[in-house]
């Protein structure tokens, strides 16, 4: 079995004493759309930030596409695409110039970067906004641009941290069309964190549940739902809530 993302015994404690990750193990298969779920503060964003090299781990190890950041940082950055919760945009640059610049950062020539920028503008339907400064875009369009930037260099693994926050239903629909197409046709592995469980339910095939820095469940979404409500066709959201309630009851008793 080929695992695109392999995480072994990852730990992270913040300077304020909060233990964000307590020995996380995770394996994500190549070409899968994987949802990382859990309540706020459970450790999802910390895990994503470690895997994307934004913050250091305390201990443990991980590799993506067989690449470990300690050994080949630059290759790793080319392999992954990242769209985090916050919009990381230069507000004074236009949509097209940000996309073009992103391409050049990844070694594209001016011509290649321009062509890629135009392709992504079409894909994310930003045509009418392409000459607007990023700071002047609506919240939804900022998110779209943000995700487009993560795809400029055609990554093999995509990290999406709450990608559709602030998007209207139409924009979300369009966004997921692009992402599922990448996942299905180009076999891009996607790690998604979201609080919109209907999105995880609809688009992801596997999931992990993280609570207090520990992975509590990892596996098929369908199996998780069946485990929570056997022989009932329930939603992921219902199963998720049942799981959390069960945990709370166990803790209280």
């Amino acid at each position: 079995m080929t695992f695109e993302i392999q995480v072994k015994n990852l730990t992270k404690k913040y300077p304020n004493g909060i233990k964000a990750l307590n020995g996380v193990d995770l394996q994500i298969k190549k070409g899968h759309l994987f949802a990382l779920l859990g309540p706020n503060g459970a450790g999802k964003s910390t895990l994503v930030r470690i895997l994307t090299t934004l913050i250091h781990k305390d201990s443990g190890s991980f590799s993506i596409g067989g690449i470990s950041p300690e050994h080949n940082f630059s290759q790793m950055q080319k392999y992954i695409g990242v769209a985090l919760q916050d919009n990381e945009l230069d507000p004074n640059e236009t949509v097209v110039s940000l996309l073009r610049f992103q391409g050049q950062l990844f070694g594209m020539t001016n011509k290649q970067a321009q062509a890629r920028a135009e392709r992504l503008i079409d894909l994310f339907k930003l045509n009418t906004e392409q000459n607007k400064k990023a700071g002047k875009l609506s919240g939804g369009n900022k998110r779209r641009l943000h995700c487009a930037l993560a795809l400029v260099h055609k990554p093999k693994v995509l990290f999406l941290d709450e990608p559709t926050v602030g998007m209207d239903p139409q924009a979300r629909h369009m966004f997921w069309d692009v992402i599922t197409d990448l996942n299905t046709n180009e076999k891009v592995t996607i790690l998604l964190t979201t609080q919109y469980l209907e999105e995880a339910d609809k688009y992801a095939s596997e999931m992990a549940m993280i609570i207090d820095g520990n992975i509590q469940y990892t596996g098929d979404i369908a199996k998780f739902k069946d485990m929570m409500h056997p022989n009932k066709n329930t939603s992921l959201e219902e199963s998720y809530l049942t799981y959390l309630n069960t945990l709370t009851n166990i803790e209280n008793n």
Partner: protein
Amino acid sequence: MNTATKTLITRGIVKLIKQPQTPLMGFAMSLFFLLVYNAGIGGIGDLDVFGKGQYFAFIFPITIISLSMGSSAGAGQALNADLQSGYFRRLYLSPVSRWVLVMAPMLADTISSILFTGILLGIGAIFGLPFQFGILSVFGILLLSMLWSVTLCGFSAGIMLRTGQYQNAAIITNAVFPLLFLSTTFLPRELIKAKWLLTVSWGNPVTYILEANRYLLGGTASVNYFYISLAVLVTTSILSVVYAQISARKIKVWI
């Protein structure tokens, strides 16, 4: 230099062109110093100690030094703008090394400083500024200006990266400002009567930069000042770059 590095440096320069307030302020401040000092105390230039360029050539180096001081906060402010908008994270996630991310705005600032120094020298030449060694004097002054600019930019960027406060990018300018007055800025050593000021001026690096420039312009200082100045500025430039790079590692803590 790879495409990504060139792209980042170009971005820094384009940003300075689009938002030129910081280097223009430095330039305006330098011209102001030149105008005011020359108009106010230029009359003493008839004394022999000021040489053939008279007081204009004597006071000119201070405008070059203050030019870099005025614009040195630019690198720190550029880094800060990217950190505040979150765009630095996007740059951080590219295959460009951390070293280049910090060096690019410093280089852009230094290039801008050299450019404005060139313009200042051009203005000086129009008003009769002598160049003791012709074009070699110009290159020498540009070299000293570049090293001085790197020194200030590196410390400025480093302080900003450590504190995360863009206001702190100007700390280095404020710290260096008094050094301008604790030196042979307005009068040659022979005319300074206060012993304490003479003593302090020996330990003040600005003195050597001033005198090195005077050697290259009016020829009123010894060549030794040029060598000492070069040694001092190469050392401070290296220290400054190292400081900025060490500070860059701290970014992760508050990213």
